[in-house]
């Protein structure tokens, strides 16, 4: 009994170690690469211990890419800024639109309510190109092509379903009695919504906002279709950057690190909320 216990424990530890290596090694490797010079990158076999250099980051931040053919101007920092702007604004708009709607779906049974909720949710699962390709033609007609406003609008396709989905779950989980008590006390429904319902769903709203920020940040195809270089976020920008920079692998690695850093940092900072949000409120109980 005790011996098989020990064997089981060792096997389990071994398996989990393999799991960690598989899932963390790529991130670790890119991080290492971003601190290497090109010569170190190209060394075979790869070295684990290197003399770190910041030159890749310096090049990126200064916007001057060092290539064999001389310095090259790049827009990577601009891409980074675009990502921040697009993600923050999209999430903010989604919260304003989505939280009241989520409340309506959670608290009221009304004619067509389930259908509307289903339609909004199903956006999450529709092929994005189906909408994006015609939209790319429309946007040129109505002057929204390659504008932040156009992009933020389309980004609602990512953020809004997520916020509706998660926040609705939180509203449904909260007992309506507390709001009823507040109404019976003599307060209007609007005050019950703003003073009671929203504060109580606070953690859910935060989780939904975080998650939709990350999804907006990580999105690739929307901007690929609808934005040109000066409005592109890092996901698309990085791909263009790879093509432009040729064999400057250290700098590519540094660009990738800078691009994934914000979401990874957020993930680590708010991991508990994220996990809850990711389970979509479906499995809490």
């Amino acid at each position: 009994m005790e011996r098989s216990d020990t064997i089981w424990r060792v096997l389990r530890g071994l398996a989990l170690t393999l799991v960690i290596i598989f899932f963390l090694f790529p991130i670790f490797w890119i991080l290492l690469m971003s601190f290497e010079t090109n010569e170190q990158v190209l060394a075979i076999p790869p070295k684990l211990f290197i003399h770190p250099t910041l030159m890749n980051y310096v090049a990126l931040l200064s916007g001057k890419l060092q290539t064999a053919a001389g310095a090259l101007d790049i827009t990577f920092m601009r891409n980074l800024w675009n990502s921040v702007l697009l993600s923050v604004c999209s999430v903010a708009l989604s919260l304003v639109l989505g939280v009241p709607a989520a409340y309506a779906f959670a608290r009221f049974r009304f004619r067509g309510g389930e259908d509307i909720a289903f339609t909004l949710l199903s956006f999450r699962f529709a092929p994005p190109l189906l909408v994006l390709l015609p939209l790319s033609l429309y946007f040129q007609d109505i002057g929204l092509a390659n504008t932040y406003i156009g992009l933020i609008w389309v980004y609602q396709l990512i953020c809004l379903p997520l916020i509706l989905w998660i926040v609705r779950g939180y509203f449904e989980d909260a007992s309506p009695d507390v709001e009823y008590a507040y109404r019976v006390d003599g307060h209007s429904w609007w005050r019950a919504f703003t003073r009671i319902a929203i504060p109580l769903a606070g953690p859910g709203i935060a989780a939904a906002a975080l998650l939709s920020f990350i999804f907006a940040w990580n999105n690739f195809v929307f901007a690929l279709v609808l934005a040109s270089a000066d409005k592109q976020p890092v996901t698309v920008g990085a791909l263009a950057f790879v093509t432009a920079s040729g064999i400057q692998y250290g700098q590519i690695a540094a660009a990738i690190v800078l691009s994934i850093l914000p979401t990874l940092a957020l993930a680590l900072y708010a991991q508990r909320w994220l996990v809850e949000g990711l389970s979509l409120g479906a499995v809490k109980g």
Partner: protein
Amino acid sequence: MSDLAIRPAASSRPWLPRLLPYLLSLPALLVCIGILIPFGTAVWYSLERYNLAMPYTRGFIGVQQYIDLFTDPAFWHTVQVSLIYTAATVGVELLLGLGIALLLRERSRFNNFVSVALLLPLMTAPALAALMWKLMTNPGFGVLSWVVSLFGITNFKWASSPSTAMLTVVLVDIWVYTPFMIILLLAGLRSLPQQPFEAARLDGVPPTFVFWRITLPMLMPYILTATLFRVLDSIQQFDIIYAMTQGGPGDSLLVFQVSAYLNFFQYTNVGGSAAILMVLWAITYALSNVFIKQWQKLRERAHGTV
């Protein structure tokens, strides 16, 4: 009582309670209707002969587009590639995810650390993850190329060879999305009532019997939900494949959305592209219906109303 129909009672403005839910959800709906219009357009395009390079040939051709599509071997190749990709990614992710979730089931400091670490790949943009793996599989200096060479396999071309391109993108997909499976199944496992398992421990029921007769049936709704969710995502995969190989080499990775994208931008065939996407939409719509029902059932279970 919370499942009872609940409407605010009438007030001095009797129209308010009836309209309130609509007023609250209207802004969100309007924004989305703006997005629904292009959807209608896409349906129309799929019934048109429409090539941006030849605008003068534009015209309504009805279902001819679909007939052409279904008789085109290239389309069936796309279907095949998409299905292989979906089956491979979701299958491996499910098995791996279930196994790892079972390993992480106990709440301990180490297990919590592992679950947090597992969030990182999931939070990496898939397009960027593809770039990372592209660097790691670079034939010149890629660490994975070096690793396989240690096993005596030289000249392993990863994504650049039609024979291994699928394997490579599937690997990236697994790296990114297995954690999603793990997190969902882990949440499911941990939300299962503990007492039946305690009872089984007390009664000395063998572990394999417990797994097959108790754990797995109890977890099945969660497995179904997570699998459906991943199938819906995987069959529409674009980011990883496009960032890694743009559908190549050759036509080896032309899944639905990549195929439609290239049809639109490379061959400017708007109508054909729309038709491919309509087929994909029909599949996902049917699946998402099943998924949302399944998900609602799960929520009701969590609330104990079933």
